[in-house]
């Protein structure tokens, strides 16, 4: 099983990973082999089985609405690729 090229390109776009031309067939083949593995699930009868998102049957804890995080901009931006005047800089966003 292999995934169509068009599909790989869509996945690459959605996940923002550049895939180069030379590796596309290899990627397709390897993804295909993983999908073949997970396709075993299709044979299972799961009628009426509830989906399980969390291993534990716990409920969400709620936090009091109190400020606990103070300004640490300097420390947090010390490891940023590019900043200016407290802003994170990225290549221009075109809306």
């Amino acid at each position, binding site marked *: 099983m292999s995934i169509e090229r068009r599909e790989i390109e869509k996945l690459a776009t959605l996940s923002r990973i550049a895939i180069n031309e030379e590796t596309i067939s290899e990627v397709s083949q390897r993804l295909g082999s993983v999908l073949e593995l997970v396709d075993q699930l299709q044979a299972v009868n799961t009628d009426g089985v509830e989906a399980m998102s969390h291993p534990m049957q716990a409920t969400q804890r*709620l936090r009091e609405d109190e*400020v606990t995080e103070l300004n640490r901009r300097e420390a947090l931006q010390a490891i940023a690729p590019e900043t*200016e*005047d407290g802003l994170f800089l990225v290549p221009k966003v075109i809306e």
Partner: protein
Amino acid sequence: MSWDTVIGLEIHVQLATKTKIFSGASTAYGAEPNTQACAIDLAMPGTLPVLNKQAVNYAIMFGLAIDAEIGQVSAFERKNYFYPDLPKGYQTTQLEKPIVGRGNVEIQLADGSTKNVRIHHAHLEEDAGKSLHEGNFNSSFSGIDLNRAGTPLIEIVSEPDMTSAEEAIAFAKKIHSIVTSIGICDGEMSQGSMRFDVNVSVKPSGSETLGTRTETKNLNSFKFMEEAIKREVARQIDVIEDGGTIAQETRLYNGETKVARSMRSKEEANDYRYFPCPDLLPVVVSDEQVEELRRKLPELPDARQARFVKQYELSEYDAGILSSDAAMANYFEAVTSACNNAKLAANWTMGELSARLNNEDLSIANSPVSAEQLAGLIVRIADNSISGKMAKEVFEAIWAGEGSADQIIDARGLKQVSDSGALEQMVADVLAANQAMVDDYINTDEAKRKKKLGGFMGQIMKASKGQANPQQVNQILAKKLNELL
């Protein structure tokens, strides 16, 4: 051919919590960039969300206010897309199990009738940060400020129950009125506290089948929203009448340039891959929690309107306007309780004050004239210390920060003369000094004499430098002239 318009709204309401929905960073407006963006808001590796209790309570309060079903178990999902103002690369939101289910909102229309708009659901989610395209940086960059990232929102989704821009605006204003009345949102539109996405379609009048809809996103004022709807309706009708078809698409409307455009290219690539957020557990709301919030729920706009009519003997119309905005209603009640004159308090709050605030684009919360100051002015109007004309001058002086009404009246010597002895003398002096006018009055037919009174009034007011109480002067003048007949 005539057309029906179908409109549905999605309204993003920023909740007035002190901290973010999933972190303990402040949500205060206007801070320096990224000083209120903690490691969680920046999506630093290994950081995790914990849900803010107040955000949950506020969402439930909204549900109670629109008589909606409250989801006993609600859950968070991740909506995946890349954008620089979305640090995690996904927005944590609710899809399958929103906290607020179906509800209803009644709107009042200009003709006095009412209409019910159904709410499909309302869900909790986090706001994104902001991308700045201009600043002290190279123009090939954008600057990212994540202070707003993680601010709690509820997104209120209506059914497509509105048929005109006017109805949509009435609905949007009603939601504004509800969320400010129950105190879950500050209602500051200019700060982005409420933003609207508008779904619009048209269909031939009477047709059962809905047309293809477009969504115009991120409108941040009632005015822009009204313009955007009207233009979009006109555009759709034009396209269809020219034989075209409407594409289902997302559009942007620029309120400054009045130009709308399609964001189609962006939409095509979207596949948000929603799935349950594994970092957050199901949110369980107990009956006790709901009942406690119900007990504490502040007065809703409709109830407040009814109370204003009953308690203050206001007209339905005045009561409706005052109660539509929680801040205005609170202001009005504060003025009334301080001056004990609901009628004047209502007139001044809705009239002079509102007009002045509108001109200056100020919210009532930021009014330069406090409720106490306005009450002080009204007390002096009611006891005839100043005339209506003087009152406007005093109001302007209060607005300009010159002090209380009494201070300004004293400082400017504006006190109205209402001492009847002094006024009688003043009238007698003016009559004595203007014998010709008096003779003319006496010789005029009775039916036309009334017209001549104005001349005397003018002289008297001039002599008193405008400080004579006009009603009293009128009475004294009429009496004295009668004696001369």
